[in-house]
C-alpha cells in the first residue's frame, strides 16, 4: 500500500508479519479520523522498541520514538504538555506488560486521555523470540529453551482491573475491523486500550489459531464483570470493544481548561507574579 501515507523508510518486517495488518489498519484509520474532525497534524504518535515500534518510521506523523516500555509515559507527557493533541502509542506485549507495565496500569487508573495499541505477539520478537509476559506456559525461546514456566498475563482483564475506560481487542488479520477500533479508541475521551492479536510468523505463528477462534462482538459488555468474562474466554477470541465507559479524564481533573504549551505565561507576566510572590513573602 504505497500511498501518501507511505514514508521513505524501508519496511523491514518479515513478509507475512501481523504488523503489516496493524500498519494498514492505522493508515485506514487516519482519513476516517479526519472525517471526524481530527486532522493529521493533531495526531501525535509514539512507539516502544521492538518489531512493533518500527511502525513509527512507517507513517508520516509527528511523534516521539520512545524507549522500550516507556512510550505510555511519553504520550502521557505529550498529552499533559498540550491537551489539544490526540496521542496514540504502539507498544509491544513485552514493552507494555513487561518493562512498562507500571505506566500501563497507572495510565488506566488515572484515565489518561491516550490510546495504547499493543501488538500482542506473545514474544520478545526483535530480540529473537524470548518468552514475554503474554507467552503461554511452555513457550520455547532462547532464554528458556525448555519452555516458559510462568502463566501469561491477560492484558484485557488486567487493563479492566486497572480502571481502563475503553478496552478492545483487534486482530491483525481483520484490517477494516481494526481500523474502526482505532478510530473509536482515539475518539474515546479517556484511556483507550486495544490489544491486537498479532502473529509473529517467525517466533509465534498464530494465524491459524486466530483465524479459527476470533469472533466479532458487536457491542461492548454493559457491566465490568461481563467484560472481564469476555476477556477471559479462550474457546473463542472475541474481538471488538469489550468495555467502554465515560469517566473524568486525568488532565482535566488536574488543571481544567489550562493548556501548558499554549497558555504558557509570557516572561513579563512571570516576572510580575514572582515579584508579587516575593513581596508577599516579605510582608509575611
Amino acid at each position: 500500500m504505497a500511498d501518501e501515507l507511505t514514508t521513505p523508510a524501508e519496511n523491514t518486517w518479515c513478509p507475512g508479519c501481523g504488523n503489516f495488518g496493524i500498519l494498514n489498519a492505522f493508515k485506514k484509520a487516519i482519513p476516517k479520523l479526519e472525517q471526524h474532525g481530527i486532522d493529521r497534524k493533531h495526531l501525535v504518535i509514539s512507539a516502544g522498541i521492538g518489531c512493533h515500534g518500527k511502525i513509527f518510521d512507517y507513517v508520516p506523523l509527528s511523534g516521539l520514538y520512545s524507549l522500550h516500555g516507556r512510550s505510555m509515559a511519553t504520550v502521557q507527557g505529550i498529552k499533559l504538555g498540550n491537551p489539544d493533541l490526540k496521542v496514540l502509542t504502539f507498544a509491544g506485549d513485552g514493552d507494555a506488560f513487561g518493562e512498562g507495565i507500571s505506566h500501563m496500569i497507572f495510565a488506566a487508573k488515572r484515565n489518561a486521555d491516550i490510546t495504547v495499541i499493543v501488538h500482542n505477539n506473545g514474544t520478545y520478537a526483535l530480540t529473537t523470540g524470548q518468552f514475554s509476559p503474554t507467552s503461554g506456559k511452555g513457550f520455547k525461546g532462547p532464554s528458556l529453551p525448555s519452555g516458559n514456566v510462568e502463566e501469561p498475563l491477560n492484558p484485557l482483564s488486567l487493563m479492566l482491573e486497572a480502571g481502563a475506560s475503553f478496552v478492545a481487542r483487534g486482530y491483525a488479520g481483520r484490517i477494516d475491523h481494526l481500523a474502526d477500533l482505532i478510530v473509536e479508541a482515539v475518539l474515546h475521551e479517556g484511556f483507550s486500550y486495544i490489544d491486537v492479536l498479532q502473529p509473529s510468523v517467525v517466533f509465534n505463528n498464530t494465524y491459524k489459531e486466530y483465524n479459527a477462534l476470533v469472533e466479532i462482538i458487536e457491542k461492548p459488555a454493559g457491566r465490568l464483570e461481563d467484560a472481564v468474562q469476555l476477556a477471559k474466554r479462550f474457546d473463542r477470541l472475541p474481538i471488538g470493544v469489550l468495555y467502554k465507559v465515560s469517566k473524568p479524564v486525568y488532565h482535566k481533573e488536574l488543571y481544567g481548561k489550562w493548556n501548558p504549551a499554549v497558555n504558557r505565561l509570557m516572561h513579563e507576566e512571570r516576572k510580575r507574579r514572582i515579584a508579587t510572590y516575593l513581596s508577599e513573602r516579605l510582608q509575611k
Partner: protein
Amino acid sequence: MAGGLQGCKTFFINGGYGIKPMNDDVFTYLIGGKAGQGTKKAGIVAANFFSALKRNVFQMNDYPSLIRGGHNFSLVSTATRKIYSQYMKADLAVLLDQRSYTIHRDHLTENGVLVYDSTAVKQGQGIGLPIASLAKNYADPDLIVGVTGIAVLAAVVGADRAKLDTLIQKEYRRSAEDNLKFAHEIYDEAEKKITQRFELREGKETHPILAGAETIGLGASAAGLDLYFAYPMTPSTPILHFLAAQAKQLGVVTVQPENEIAVANMAIGAAFTGARSMVGTSGGGFCLMQEAFSLAGMVEALVVFFLGQRPGPSTGVPTYSEQGELLFSLYPGQGEFPRIVASPGSIEEAFYVAAELLDLAWRFQTPAILLSEKHLTESSMNVDLDIEKIRAAAPDMHTSGIYQRYRQTETGVSPLLFPPSDAMIKWNSYEHDEQGYTSEEADVIARMHVKRRTKQESLIRYLREKVQTVNEYGTGDPCVFTFGSTTMSVREAVLHAGLSCTVVQPIYLQPFPSWNLMKYVGRKAVVVEQNCTGQLEQLLREKTGITPISSIRQFNGRPFNPVDLAEQLRKVIG
C-alpha cells in the same frame, strides 16, 4: 529594643566568639524537641522575628527520617551583615525534651542562655520552665509547645508583649488564642527567671527569607517553567511541595506520577510539545531516570533534572546532607551526548542557576542537571533576587523551508518546531537521519555523532563567552576551592574568622570550566567539600592539575560548622 530587666545582665551582640571580629554581631538561636513539636516552625518564626529587625538570617533544620518523636532541631543564626550559615553554638537554646537537652546542653556560646522544659528534663542546668505541665491545660498540648520558642526568644531579647502578640497572631493563626495565652504564660515565666539578656542591633535592609527549594522553584518559573514532574524523595520533595502550593500563582502544573521513570519520560514528552519541563529527585530516583536522560540526549529534548544530594550510597541517610554525587552526575545515561551540570553556591544563587539551566537546556536542546544538597534546598536565608537578570531566550525555532528535526547546522543545534504542525516532527531514540527516521547506516551514525559533538563545542563556547561559570570571593592565598552549598559554609567561616583567602567556586561542573580555573594553577590550594573521597579535589586535579596542600572534608551528614571550619582553614593558612 526595650531596655534590660531589673538585675538582668545584657549582652550587646557583637562578640562572644573568641576569634570573631568585634564588628560581627551573630546571634544564634536553637530550638530542639521531638518531631511534631514544631521546632522548624519555631525556627521560622524566630527568623521572621529577626527579619523584622532588618537583620539577616540563616536557618538550618536538622531532623531524622521519622514523623513524630525522635529529635529535631532548628538553628537560626542572625547578623546585621549577610550571613551564610547556621552556627552550631547557640546564644539562646530552647530545649523541649530530655533528648534535646542531653544533646545540646553544651552547645552554647560563652554567655549563652539555656531554657529547657523542666517537666521533661530531670536535673537540668539552666533555666527550667514547666512547659509540658503548662501545655497540659490546652486542647492540643503537643502542638501548643511550639510557641514556646518565640515566647522565650522575646523575653531573652527583651521584646515587649505587644510585639510578641503581633508576631503570634501572624504566625500561629491556627488556634491563635490558645497560642497567645500559652505564650504569655511562658513569657512571664521566662522573664521571671532569666538573668541575662541580649540586645540585638537593628540591621539596614531586609529581604524575604526563602529556602533553596523556593529559590529553585522561582528561578525555574522565571525562566519559563510550565510543568514540574516529581516523585517524592528527600531532599527534592520541598520543590514539589512549593510548586504545588504556588501552582496557580506561578502558572505551573505539578505532576506526581507512579515512579521516577514515568517522571522523566513524561517530562520529555511534555518538552516535545514546547512546554518547559523540569523534574526533581534525589540520587536513587536519578538512577532510575538515567535511561530517560540518555533519551533526552538522543532526541535532543530540553529538560532540567534537579538532583538533590543526601548521604549515600543507596537509601543512605535521607534527611541529611552530603556532596557524594558530583562524579556520579557527570556522565549519566549511556552513550555520548552533551550534558550540563551546575551546582549553586548559595540559596540566592540557586535562583539564577535554576533559571540559567532551563535557558541552557532550551538553547542547546540537551538535558541539564541542577546538582544540590539537602543543606541548600531545606535551609533558608534572606535573598535579594533580581528578576531582571533572568534570561529566557526563545528557542531556535524553525521558520521556513522543509523541516528537518535533526538538520545539520554550524552550531549542531537544529531548529525546533512543535506540534500541531503541518510539517512532520520526529524525535527518535534510535540513531536517525536528519528527518528523524531510524538509521543504521555507518555514515549517518558518524554524522550524528559529530552533530552532537559540535553542539557540545557550541555549548562550551557559549559558557566561556556568556556565562559566569566560576565564582571568586576575597583575595589572597590560599585559594579555597569548594562547590555547592559548602560554599556557604566556607564563606561564613571566612567572614567569621576574618580570614584572608580567595574562595573559588566552580558553579558549572560539566562542562568543567577549566578555562576559568587554570589561572589558579600554582597557587596554594585547599579544597573543602562535604564528602569522603574528595570528588571536587579529584576533578580539579585531573582537569587543571591544581593539587591542594590540604583537603578539608566532612562526611557525617551534617553541614560544616563555620567555627570549626574556620579553625581548620586557619591551620592551613598558618
